[in-house]
């Protein structure tokens, strides 16, 4: 068998040379580009050219701090790398002038530094010791924001494709044993032990087998898989190759949602590079193992993230779940034995093979090993991507890494696992994050989306939001999900409109129970979770809506009453002019009043009042 030693030595040398130069690296993940990274890159190029500087210009993907994009990294030869945040295009000139020309970092813009072997700058947080990264581990995300995702040189130089090289030298069952030893469980949400799944496919009889990657990430607030695909596409390919070899597949599919054009572009590029290097195709490294990967772009249906609907979609059929059993391990793509894992699961595999299952199992808890990538969004200060060891608490994630709640407000709950998950209230903030603890709370680990909610969030409204999503995205095949989600949404809408009755809660309870018990696929069975958990932890909010016709969080507009505080009102008349319903009256310079019957609760008056004299409650 051939090896990659020569190539790796050459690429390591090139990589080292690149790192040894004065460098400017712009973050060009989707989050960076959305924040203006492209324009920053253009300005960097122009500025460097105009000044005739000898600087290597490079780009990378998202390092995780999406809330500080656009981010730019600058390193002088032999000095620490400084990562700057909020570097909009107009800041580029000053940044280059100071850091490159005058060799002085712009301290007020610096977020973190990575000194490597150099002496750190005073006054800039070192990445590993910074609040955001201190409690994180970086294994599956280790290349994110650090290497150029479009360069196979960077990948191979940083240990890439060592995993498949190592795998091809051992017998196939040994690989499955190593994955079993690692304790890796499916990162897409189900948490099924990956090694066991591979064993099923290995054991399944068939002349043709497939390895399929589920990159149809669709939960609101989830972008882990996108970040991995955009930041380290080769790791996913390598994971799939190792899986393919282990189970005896010669073909793989990546089912990636079409809404991720950058991920698809970088995957295509990575596939082409791997093929050029003889790492994909026939007789890889003279080992006798052949493997090819194709990309199938989804067409926008959330349900295609369900594994059997995904297989139908690849086959060109309507994306509707199939009855299981037979499971994909026995009858999957085109009825052939198929292993189906999600992006993050595959991306973990090369590391496990390189460093061993024991290394991986050292991280995490008894039943949930390793690390997990989460996306923190919502009413939290630091929204972004993070990788944490299993077993960390929600408090650590939200308050240490996430920096607490925006505007100093009070934490109310966090939604874990998207529309299939549930909300977790403040009293459970110290729960260890692992598959089983979250399930016990009525939520799920899910793919890793965490949406934080504060005291201004109405929990009935949250349940309504997720039900609206599942109702629209139900494939329509099974009765409980198709009809049940519609009726649950209608009931929630009535409650938010102040037309709810106490028996609606019983009806919701019954629908939750029946749908969970009878729906065809995982999505249907879990779609009542947002209602079940809000009913469990925030029942009093439902009751306030129904009995008192009041929304405690002040969100449900139909239940709000606008009043003018006479002691604060100056009688300026601004509210009168802004009211489209003519509901406000009052003498000039005297206190005004709102006619509640005429008020349409649009909130225009509150925005116009300069004296905080109007309140809604």
């Amino acid at each position, binding site marked *: 068998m051939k090896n990659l030693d020569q190539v790796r030595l050459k690429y390591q040398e090139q990589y080292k040379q690149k790192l040894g130069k004065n460098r400017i690296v712009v973050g060009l993940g989707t989050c960076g580009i959305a924040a203006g990274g492209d324009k920053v890159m253009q300005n960097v190029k122009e500025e460097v050219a105009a000044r005739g500087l000898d600087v290597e210009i490079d780009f990378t993907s998202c390092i995780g701090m999406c809330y500080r994009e656009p981010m730019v990294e600058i390193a002088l030869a032999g000095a620490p790398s400084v990562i700057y945040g909020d570097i909009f295009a107009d800041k580029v000139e000053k940044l280059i002038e100071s850091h490159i020309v005058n060799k002085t970092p712009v301290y007020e813009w610096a977020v973190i530094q990575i000194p490597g072997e150099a002496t750190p700058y005073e006054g800039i947080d070192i990445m590993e010791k910074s609040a955001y990264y201190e409690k994180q581990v970086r294994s599956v995300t280790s290349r994110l924001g650090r290497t150029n995702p479009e360069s196979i040189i960077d990948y191979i130089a940083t240990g890439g494709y060592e995993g498949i090289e190592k795998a091809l030298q051992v017998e196939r069952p040994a690989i499955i044993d190593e994955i079993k030893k690692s304790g890796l469980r499916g990162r897409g949400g189900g948490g099924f032990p990956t090694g066991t799944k591979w064993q099923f496919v290995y054991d399944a009889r068939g002349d043709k087998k497939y390895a399929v990657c589920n990159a149809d990430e669709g939960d609101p607030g989830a972008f882990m898989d996108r970040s991995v695909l955009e930041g380290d596409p080769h790791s996913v390919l390598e994971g799939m190759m190792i899986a393919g070899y282990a189970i005896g597949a010669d073909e793989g599919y990546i089912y990636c949602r079409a809404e991720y054009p950058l991920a698809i572009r970088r995957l295509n590029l990575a596939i082409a590079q791997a093929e050029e290097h003889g790492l994909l195709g026939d007789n890889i490294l003279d080992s006798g193992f052949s493997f090819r990967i194709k990309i199938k772009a989804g067409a926008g249906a959330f349900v295609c993230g369900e594994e059997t609907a995904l297989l139908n979609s690849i086959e060109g059929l309507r994306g509707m779940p199939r009855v299981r059993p037979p499971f994909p391990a026995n009858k999957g793509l085109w009825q052939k034995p198929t292993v189906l894992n999600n992006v993050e699961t595959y991306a973990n595999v090369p590391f496990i093979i390189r460093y061993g299952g024991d290394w991986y199992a050292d991280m995490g808890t008894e039943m949930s090993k390793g690390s997990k990538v989460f996306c923190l969004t919502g009413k939290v200060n630091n929204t972004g991507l993070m990788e944490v060891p299993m077993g960390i608490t929600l408090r650590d994630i939200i308050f240490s890494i996430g920096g607490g709640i925006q505007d100093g407000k009070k934490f109310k709950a966090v939604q874990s696992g998207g529309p299939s998950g549930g909300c977790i209230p403040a009293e459970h903030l110290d729960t260890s994050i692992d598959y089983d603890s979250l399930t016990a709370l009525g939520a799920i680990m899910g793919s890793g989306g965490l949406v934080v909610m504060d005291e201004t969030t109405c929990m009935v409204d949250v349940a309504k939001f997720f039900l609206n999503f599942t109702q629209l995205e139900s494939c329509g095949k099974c*009765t*409980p999900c198709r009809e049940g989600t519609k009726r649950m949404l209608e009931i929630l809408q009535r409650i938010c409109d102040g037309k709810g009755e106490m028996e609606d809660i019983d009806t919701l309870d019954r629908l939750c129970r029946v749908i969970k018990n009878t729906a065809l696929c995982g999505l249907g069975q879990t779609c009542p979770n947002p209602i079940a958990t809000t009913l469990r932890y925030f029942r009093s909010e439902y009751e306030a809506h129904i009995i008192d016709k009041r929304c405690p969080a002040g969100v449900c507009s139909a239940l709000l009453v606008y009043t003018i505080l006479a002691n604060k009102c100056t009688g300026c008349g601004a509210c009168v002019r802004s009211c489209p319903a003519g509901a406000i009256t009052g003498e000039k310079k005297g206190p005004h009043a709102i006619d509640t019957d005429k008020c349409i609760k649009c909130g225009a008056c509150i925005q116009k009042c300069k004296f905080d004299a109007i309140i809604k409650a």
Partner: protein
Amino acid sequence: MANVILTINGKEIVVKAGTTVLDAAQEAGFFIPTFCHDPLNPGFGACRICVVEIKGARTLVASCCTEVAHGMVVETESPAVVEARKTIIELLLANHPADCLTCDKNGDCRLQDYAYRYDIRGSSFRGEKHNYPIDDSNPYIIRDMNKCILCGRCVRTCEQVQDRQVINFAFRGFNTKVAPAMDTELAESDCVSCARCLVVCPVGALSYKNLAGKARAYEIRKEPVTCPFCDAGCRFDLNYKGEKVIGVTAKESGEGRPLCLKGRLGLELLYVDKPLTPMLKKDDRFVEVSWAEVLGMDNVLKKLIELKSN
């Protein structure tokens, strides 16, 4: 094949391995309702009305798609099962026109039968109902998608006919419906009016135009007849009201044949007193044609007439 011993409702039962729980229960005399299950085309598992409780299972399971296993303990009418079935029927009724009084399927409708069995007098859910226009563009078939419960049996039986696959599911969520390609009317599609879909429809969503308003289901006596027009021998039903045949309906296709319009119309000509004038699609529109043409006999007839006049 080996036998499997399992317990259904406390009764020990021996069946062949590979049998579904549904078949095993029905064989043992236990009732399980089904909407989407088609014995000729099994394994769809969409309607969920056939769920049963299996000891140790995480959820209720669809009996039509679950194979028996040794030692399995099944309950077909446990409180959880009954609650689930009642809820499913209520959910279907919440989005179903309450016009059984004038529905041609009244008395021959599974939704009605199961509502009766589980004592559902109406749905406790209120909310949006579909309001689709009734598609009577095809001269033989009326499609009322407001009555459709999306069991998919029509879709799957249509798929069995080579070159057809005229209808499929369209749209998502609550808006899911069965439609021809591009959601056109049936007349605009490639439908050949074979009526296989009418054979399997468990509710009033699909009905025969020629029988509309002619008789209640319980006034009709069906007598099977084998189609004599080709050697496939498809089966049809003569629909008697009193002594008169008021129409011919499809029953079951013969070996390797899909059922055909020609066969059904030929039988109507043979048995019905005043059959409606047949129509065929010409230049994408249905037009009235002669019986000779619809039965493919016009050439023969022309030659006979020629011979006679010579």
